């Protein structure tokens, strides 16, 4: 029994780790650096107790609660309480993304490429392949917990002791593993790697949103979210350990369920099997553009809906925030009093920058899709027929640009719909959203540049997007030096309506995107293609 299911799991686990070691290393370093860096920056930002205490008034409002979670230990807002309150949910979310990408790549991704079958022909157990991926994910999260605990303890901050550091890291690591197990499960249901990843990301989004809604309305919804459980540890203040058992137990059950289905199902099959399709191409599938639309339409649909919902969520949170501050009169010190802008207007740029950075993901993905086609040997079918290289790449670039407009329309539309028009007009929301478009196009241009010259290194754009996120989002909170923000196109976008719209950054970004994009085309028509 054990042999037939699990033979050689150990060897396979090492093989999985070996194949992913660079990816592991980058993720571990990034997450540990983010955690330690944030904790260290608190020391410089809020050296005195009075400053920390003053921050609580700014941090406790529906907008912030929706984003990071309910505050706790506010009567003595130590560095530890700050870290747990402001960073736990975000870091857990990031750890979730890491685990989803890792597991889906090594389960359904491999199965789709036929790698799993090659392995199954060897004397290994039926579920050894999946078990080894889950085991590697567990190891990855354990190493993450140790690294983060070590880094936090080494900072030697008074309120961040070993117990708290371990609990904080373990909550994040277990949250990550929960999503690893969840992805292993979703990979058993869906037949394609993309659907499996989509399901897992849906789970992550649901967990985050349930927590946000539950926290804002102070109801039980947060209890349906693993991220909510992690936050109930009230780490660094009360250090409650038992919610970790919820995380560990549910992860274990989900993993076992995944293994059970895996052992029972046929390789390559899923619960949702592929149906029969059309015998002939429809009127849309008439060329490169039609093909791109066909391959991406599902993703586009879900991203548009997600951005619209995100807009609605933030819009209603802003409305709540406005009401909150009106009733409590704590406006002093939070936002500038001299301004004649409404609160919503002052909060808008921060929220918009976050939504723009999220909206960039599908835009970049759309442009990079051409590289997937090349890697999977499918581009030769197109370029081997009467399609020029410029035409082919241009289709992807134009598609990516069109998508940027759709994303921002959906976001701003959702937000404007949910907003109270008196505190924030729809036109302000749309203007603020569209100001980000040139920054999107720089990302599209960068994607084209990488495709043209360094097709093997297109992952660099994700690192750059990660950097942009840290520079823009955390830059505001932690007051990084100006050049940190200026290294990303998003740092150049005017914080309308707080700042005025200046034409130079807009024109500058558009020009940069045009120049690097054109360079990318130049590289693409000259280089060898690989398939």
């Amino acid at each position, binding site marked *: 029994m054990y042999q037939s299911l699990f033979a050689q799991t150990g060897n396979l686990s090492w093989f999985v780790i070996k194949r992913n070691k660079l990816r592991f290393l980058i993720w571990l370093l990034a997450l540990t650096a983010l955690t330690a860096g944030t904790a260290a920056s608190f020391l410089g930002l809020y050296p005195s107790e009075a400053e920390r205490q003053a921050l609580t008034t700014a941090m406790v409002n529906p907008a912030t609660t929706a984003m990071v979670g309910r505050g706790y230990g506010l009567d003595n807002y130590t560095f530890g309480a700050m870290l747990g309150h402001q960073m736990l949910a975000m870091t857990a979310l990031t750890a979730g993304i890491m685990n989803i990408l890792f597991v889906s790549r090594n389960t359904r991704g491999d199965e789709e490429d036929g790698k799993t079958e090659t392995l199954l022909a060897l004397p290994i157990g039926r579920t050894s392949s999946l078990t080894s991926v889950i085991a590697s994910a567990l190891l990855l999260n354990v190493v993450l917990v140790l690294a983060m605990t070590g880094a936090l303890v080494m900072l030697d901050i008074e309120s961040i002791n070993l117990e708290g550091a371990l609990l904080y890291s373990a909550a994040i690591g277990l949250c990550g593993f929960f999503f690893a197990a969840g992805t292993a499960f979703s990979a058993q249901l869906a037949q394609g790697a993309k659907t499996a990843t989509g399901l897992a990301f849906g789970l992550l989004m649901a967990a985050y949103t349930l927590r946000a809604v539950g926290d804002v309305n102070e109801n039980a919804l947060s209890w349906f979210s693993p991220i909510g459980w992690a936050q109930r540890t009230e780490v660094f203040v009360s250090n409650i350990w038992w919610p970790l058992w919820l995380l560990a137990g549910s992860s274990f059950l989900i993993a076992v369920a995944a293994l059970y289905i895996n052992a029972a199902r046929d390789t390559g099959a899923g619960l949702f099997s592929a149906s029969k399709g059309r015998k002939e191409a429809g009127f849309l599938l008439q060329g490169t553009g039609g093909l791109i639309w066909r391959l991406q339409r599902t993703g586009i649909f879900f991203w548009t809906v997600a951005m619209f919902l995100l807009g609605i969520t933030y819009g209603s949170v802003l409305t709540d925030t406005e009401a909150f501050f009106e009733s409590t009169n704590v406006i002093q010190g939070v936002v500038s009093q001299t301004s004649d802008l409404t609160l919503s207007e002052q909060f808008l740029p921060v929220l918009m920058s976050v939504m723009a950075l999220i909206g960039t993901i599908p835009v970049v993905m759309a442009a990079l899709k051409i590289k997937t086609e090349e890697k999977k040997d499918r581009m030769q079918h197109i370029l081997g027929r*009467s399609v020029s290289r410029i035409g082919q790449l241009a289709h992807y670039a134009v598609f990516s640009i069109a998508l940027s407009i759709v994303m921002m329309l959906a976001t701003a539309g959702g937000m404007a719909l949910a907003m109270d028009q008196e505190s924030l007009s729809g036109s302000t929301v749309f203007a603020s959203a569209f100001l980000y478009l040139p920054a999107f196009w720089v990302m599209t241009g960068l994607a084209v540049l990488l495709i043209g010259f360094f097709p093997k290194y297109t992952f660099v754009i994700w690192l750059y997007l990660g950097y942009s996120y840290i520079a823009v989002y955390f830059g505001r909170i932690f007051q990084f030096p100006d050049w940190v923000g200026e290294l990303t196109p998003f740092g150049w976008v005017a914080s309308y309506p707080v700042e005025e719209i200046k034409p130079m950054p807009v024109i500058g970004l558009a020009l940069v995107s045009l120049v690097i994009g054109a360079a990318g085309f130049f590289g693409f028509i000259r280089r060898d293609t690989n398939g």
Partner: protein
Amino acid sequence: MTILETTDLTKMFGRVKALDRVNIEMKEGEVYGFIGPNGAGKSTTLRVLLGAIKATSGSARIFGKDVWKDAVAVHRRIAYVPGDVSLWPNLTGGEVIDLFMKLHGTKNRGRRSELIDLFDLDPAKKCGTYSKGNRQKVALIAAFASDADLYIMDEPTSGLDPLMEKLFQKQVLEARENGKSVLLSSHILSEVEKLCDRVSIIRQGAIIETGSLTDLRHLTRTTLLLETKKPPQGLSAVKGVHELAHKEGAIQFQVDTEELDHVMAFVSAFGIIRLESAPPTLEDLFLRHYETARPQAQ
């Protein structure tokens, strides 16, 4: 009329010389075989011809046009079938065939359905559920349904069953009858022998033989099985005799085709009881070249 011509085509991948001064000249209406072992440079040559990769030096022209600069114009008149066909898992075979024909600029519904019937493909199935052979069929149907003057095919029958292989061969011969040209890369010799007017053998990036099959046969050896009244003393020392071996009371050996005449004169003096000859096959030629390709291995 020359339809495809390469002159000293060389391709470097970093420091590795993948193609070394490859010269091919293909005439209109010809079925041209391109054979060689795995990794010899067959696919690399075809990818240069398709304009997917750029030759380091030398030139390649199809229909008199440069394959790199005028790729799109060239592609309007060719149809290409890759050796390993990978398709979009969530598109159906029928959709892919239509898309390919559209991108090529062909509208020939009759030919399309005729070929789908002939190759026995279910066009309503998603490509993700097709076997390798079925994916190959999709590419072949799209190619043969496209109105092309030159078909470039890279090991097109890999994954096809023998029945489908026969159908494929029939399509190639039909195309030739209609005045089309076919460049067929393969390592299946029987296929090349059946279909090709001329062949080139490529090894380690260089073409080592080119000619019609009759030309190449002159370079081959005939295998003889001989039984004589008296033992043929000194046969092994005769010029042109190779691989002499005793077999069930008879002697088996190979003779260079051009030395056949005087070897026969030599053995007839011993009184021939039995003589069987096996015609030279491309296989022998192939194997001889491969063996000489790895002299260090012995």
